[in-house]
């Protein structure tokens, strides 16, 4: 009876069809139990390694995204500060202009 994990891998794993068929041929035809155990181990290790690719990708993407978000936030703060300063200057300029107008009146 085949290892359930291996059966699942053959049924639903990401392996391409050709390789699955090669594995099936091997399991049917091979009579060396030790070699069979090695091949099963090989497939399981492969599967584990393959899953780690997804995890690594997600990790890299999350990191890049977080780095971007943080830098964007910094940039936003910087711009806000400059805009705030500009707004204050505008208010001051307007106040000065208003005072001058009042004085002239």
């Amino acid at each position, binding site marked *: 009876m085949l290892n359930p994990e291996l059966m699942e891998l053959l049924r639903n794993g990401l392996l391409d069809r050709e390789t699955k068929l090669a594995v099936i041929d091997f399991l049917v035809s091979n009579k060396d139990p030790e*070699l069979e155990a090695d091949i099963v181990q090989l497939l399981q290790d492969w599967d584990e390694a393959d899953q780690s*690719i997804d995890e690594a990708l997600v990790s*890299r993407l999350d990191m890049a995204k*977080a780095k971007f978000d943080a830098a964007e936030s910094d940039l936003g703060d910087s711009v806000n500060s400059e805009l705030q300063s500009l707004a204050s*200057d505008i208010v001051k300029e307007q*106040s000065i202009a208003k005072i001058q107008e009042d004085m002239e009146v």
Partner: protein
Amino acid sequence: MTSESGSGPQPAEESALEEEFFGDGKSLEGEDTAGVESPDDGTESEPGDVEGVEEVEEPTSIRDRLFGAFSATAERVKNRFTGEVNETDQESHETSKTEFAGAVAAGLVGIAMTRTGTKFFADLPQYATQKYFTSKERSSILSAIETSDLGPESNDGASAVERKNQMITDRINESTFLTEGKKAELIGRLTGITEKYSGEFANLEEDRNQEFAEALEESIQSRISNTAMLKETLNTALIATGIASLRTVGYSAVALYERHKKVSSEMKEGKREGNYFSELVAGGAKETWSDLTKGGDGETLMKRNITRAKAAGILLRGAAMGHLAGAEIFSDENIMGAINKSVEVFQEQGVAGGFTEHFGDHFGELLGGGDDEESSAEGGDDDHHEDFESDELAEDPETGEAYVDQGPEQLAAEVDEDSPEITVLHGDELERATVGADSGHNSITALLKNQIMSDPEKFGYEGDPDDLNDWAADQATEVARSEGLLSATGDVRLTSGSIDNLIVQATEKDGEIGVHFIDSNTGKPLDVDGLQDAGYTYEHSSGAAEEVASVATERPDVEVGVDLDVEGEIAAREGDLEAAEAEYAKLDSKLTELESSIASGELTDEADMVAAQAEAETLIEEFEAIEDELDSIEDHLDDLIAWSESPLEDGETFEEWKETRAMAAEVASSEAVEDVYESGDAFDDEIVEVVEDTYASSDEIFETIFATPRIDDTGKSMNLMLAFEKSVGEAREAALNAFAQHEIGTLFKDGYLVKKGDGLEYNGRWMDFANPTENADGSMDFKVRAEGIITVVKVSKKIMDRVRG
């Protein structure tokens, strides 16, 4: 008052002014940072996160991660066979653009998109995706993103700054206190801030996208490498154990994947009780062998032969020999070596029981005996050579019965005696040459064309692939003519009895294409007369053919003879259509790329875009014109075929025939007729009864018709016909006569006297009128013809007087 007002803005006033600009003064932060999620939990980022992120350690290389336990196991497996497998035997696994790489990329892009948002793919630099996706695929994905609910993300940060920029600009411009010079100065500062922000934001995006692309690329390559290592390791083990060569043959013998579906389905249904893999492989080998030796379960010899040929074809394909001629197969040491090794493995391991010896027999017979010396050179043992040389008929592995049915190998021997250039057809080749019911297999020219197109070089074609279809059609027609199968006045057509029973094989000798007919039931060749004697063909030399031929001289687009190359005509036009579609897709892709360039700011000048759009519109018009033309040609060809099959009156032109037919079709599809059909109770029982009783003397019918309102007459005519078909049964002439009487009477009522050339739709076919003849007693005979039946409607003088009066 002045001092009060001129004391400068108080803090409260200043706050009010700021409020006017910025609301509560916190919205800037709020807007800019809203929606920025932390990587994992979706909560808002805090400024402090920056440091946290920067402190995160760089990830271990993806490749390093995966090459841990897996690479160790792989090495261990490979080391078991050190020295046993040559490097040249190893499979090469390219990591460049392949179908597999594309699939891997698609899967990983999917993961990335769900993780980062749908904009991920659109943001990726094109170089990062073009390795794995064609422009068309990329356009398709982008298009799907655009039309999805999710859509590309908006640039919230940038747009928030732009909104504020606009708001401040408006307020500055609207200010009545600021001078124009001061306004310009403030706006200049504002613009500077915005441009600085936009530039830095774009840089951030570019950096992020670059990192995305690098992560994706590394993941794709890692997955490909991971699988490549697995394949190489498996391959090493398979080759070293001899299972690889078994696999080569095993794949073919059992067509594993297809069989997997069949076996798993049948096991679910309880039809198979054995172990799954045993059923999958061993059972498959036995069944394929059964197909080969016994011809499966076919009821006829032909069907069994086809099954055999298919089984042989499967074996040949799987052994990588399907595309080679027999001599080449036996000069190929690797293939023979693979076969020998397969046989050894089968013998040693006893897979499929007694399959082994028959397997050897099969290849020996199927491929013509082989070459002893070459086989010996490969190290095969003598026993195997005996197997390959065996001329004995094999035994069925299950029943032990010798099979005596004629297989493809015997077919070859008989054909070869008379025609050395004839080769035995197997699998798809045989199907292409065997008469079938579909349009691609139901005429001699179609069958010849199939074969010529499948291997044009063999038949001497060296031209442009786009012209192949026309050339093949011409060659097929020419062969048919030269064999006397096609002429200006008739042709030789296939009967339904030839289906599955006749092989029409295209042959080539000294640059001349010919045709060879083989009775698949006997395996014997047939000449043209023999075809007719066997009931496979008949001479078609009708008036219709002559009409077509005669009119063809006036209409150059009609090929002489009835065997119009309708499919060839349509295929040629469809080729044009496909070319136009390809052009359109290419331009569409170009447009998409331009749009992406514009959107990313790389291309600011839209002149190219406008030009491309104009070009696309032109192309679309051409595309639609080709489609219309194709429809028109198809309609025309349909008409020609119908015309060639219709009884024609002297002098009736194609255009006249078509016009009459269109009128009849219009009547038949009129609302009145449809209403009658839909109501289902529109039978005029009185008329039906009268017709049934007295159809031979029609006055009463006409009187009844004259008394009937005109509306629904046409429908009633149809119903009358249907009623007669139903009630009179085989008396089809009576039905036709009744229908004709009613139609003639109805037309009389409209003041129209039918004449030669008139026609009406009748029972989905066509009813033609001949010129009426006047009898000595003043009555008239109206001759009509439909469905091969001719009937005469007699109209008395009394009625005729009434019509004329």
